[in-house]
């Protein structure tokens, strides 16, 4: 009797932990939607920022975040693919592979602000770029490298062995197998990893605040030097600090809502595929 009671108690307690976590997510989303949805309009999405955020819209913030993400994509996609191929195909020694994984985990742990500080020295000062979209894209690209690479590595590891054996049995050389079996089979993994990585990059503020983005007064860059962009997270970061007028407030929440939608849209497309791979890898 006592054991049954304890069993019930434990189930309830752990269940409450789950309920709490779900409630936190719902509360956060609910709150942002409630506060922000009234100010989201077509004019808000297509208007330029005016009056230090009190009027106008976030058009160039969206454009800027888009430019940063495109650059991030171009930096991280080839690099992550290279790392994953090296890990899954070209490195035969288990220890060497292990080293790559460990380096990726360390890179994953490095706080975003340190990327920003190093970027400030290298790009802003040494290269003399000032604040530039390219610096932000490169830094974000490095930051999401572990996310993209690890997803891709898991995907390559889960390619059924018989595909590769069949290709080898047909007499294909290594480079042909990579091109005709491994790359097509892992394309989904690359897409998933990139979506998850870019979802993270879209909301990052710390790496770009000293290196790539300003609050107002930038449109579309026409070069590299002294060509900052506006961005959604930095916009929210600045407005959050020094505005209490209701005008700003509703636009601030609207910008937050747009950012959350952007991030969730990318994650939701990517998640089911990733979770499935992950679960299968656990039980396989």
């Amino acid at each position: 009797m006592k054991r049954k009671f304890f069993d019930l108690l434990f189930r309830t307690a752990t269940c409450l932990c789950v309920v709490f976590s779900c409630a936190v997510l719902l509360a956060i989303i609910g709150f942002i939607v409630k506060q922000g949805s009234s100010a989201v309009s077509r004019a808000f999405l297509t208007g330029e920022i005016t009056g230090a955020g009190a009027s106008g819209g976030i058009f160039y913030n969206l454009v800027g975040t888009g430019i940063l993400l495109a650059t991030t994509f171009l930096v991280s996609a080839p690099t992550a693919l290279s790392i994953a191929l090296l890990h899954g195909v070209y490195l035969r020694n288990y220890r060497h592979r292990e080293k790559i994984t460990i380096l990726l985990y360390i890179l994953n742990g490095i706080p975003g602000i340190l990327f920003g500080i190093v970027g400030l020295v290298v790009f802003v000062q040494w290269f003399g770029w000032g604040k530039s979209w390219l610096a932000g894209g490169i830094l974000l690209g490095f930051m999401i490298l572990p996310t993209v690479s690890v997803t891709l590595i898991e995907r390559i590891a889960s390619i059924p062995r018989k595909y590769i054996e069949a290709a080898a049995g047909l007499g294909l050389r290594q480079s042909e197998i990579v091109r005709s079996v491994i790359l097509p089979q892992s394309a989904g993994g690359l897409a998933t990893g990139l979506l998850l990585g870019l979802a993270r990059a879209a909301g990052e503020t710390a790496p770009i605040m000293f290196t790539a983005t300003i609050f107002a007064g930038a449109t579309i860059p026409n070069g590299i030097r002294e060509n900052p962009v506006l961005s959604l997270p930095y916009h929210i970061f600045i407005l959050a600090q020094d505005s209490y007028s209701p005008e700003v407030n509703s636009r601030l929440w609207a910008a937050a809502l747009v950012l959350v939608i952007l991030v969730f849209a990318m994650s939701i497309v990517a998640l089911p595929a990733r979770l499935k791979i992950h679960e299968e890898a656990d039980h396989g």
Partner: protein
Amino acid sequence: MGKAAKLPKHNRFCAIKAASWFFTSLAFVAVTAGLILLLVESIPVWRHSGLEFITGRNWFYRAREFGALPMIYGSLQVAVIAILIAAPIAVGAAIFGTEFLSGRLRIGLKIVIELLAGIPSVIYGLLGILLLRNWVYDSMESLDILSGDTLLTAGILLAVMILPTIMTLADDALQSVPRAQRMAARSLGLTATETAINISLRGAFPGLIAAVLLAMGRALGETIAVFLVVGRQDNQLPESLFSFQPLVESGQTLTSKLGGSETNIAYGEPLHWGAMLGLGILLMIMVTALTFAGLGLQNLARRKNET
């Protein structure tokens, strides 16, 4: 991951292979160079203050006095508060997920966790500044606090942010306990709870500790959300580590200092800039140590569960 199929070997030049080596080496060199840069640029402050930089209690850059201890304290304090709040809830939820849920509900829970993890830190900061700050101020009023920007506020906010990190890693740890052991325990007549505690939790213990350490690394490195609610008050080192009052006062963490306007002022003045980068190195050392400890424990857990 060690079971990827072996490919036939050949030694002719291959463009994809060459490109793979090229990009990987490039990334490796760039990251290493970045870390070396942190070290080299911080040399002035180590020359100037030596170990006093770590143990010093005062930071007055105009007086060329650089002591990082209050910020180390701030960083550790908010991270510990976050862990104390988040770890029990996250591990509890992970247990429920692995022991009592299956199939679609499990995937559903995992999606919730991943979405929670996906919310950008600036959004958490915004929620902190507009909601949590007032809540802390109101509920701590009896303590005579000056504002809602406190170490405690930052800690609570971080707790929500690292909740999904601990949950995911704890879930992985619990999953890696062999199913056969659970079934054996159940067939001996243990209840689901007794199995969870005696088999799963015990088997996953190193992995769970790893989850907490890795999450703590994340908490130490978080910048934006902490920056917005911690108050950014320099030189706040309490006399006693175990009193509650300092927690409801403003403080400064390593990251909130690095994210502040002082970073822009400091560049160009080697000593001051060196001190800022010195903070970066302290942060890097703390985070990397936690990452290594976490990975080591995970390895240990894996080996334990394989045999």
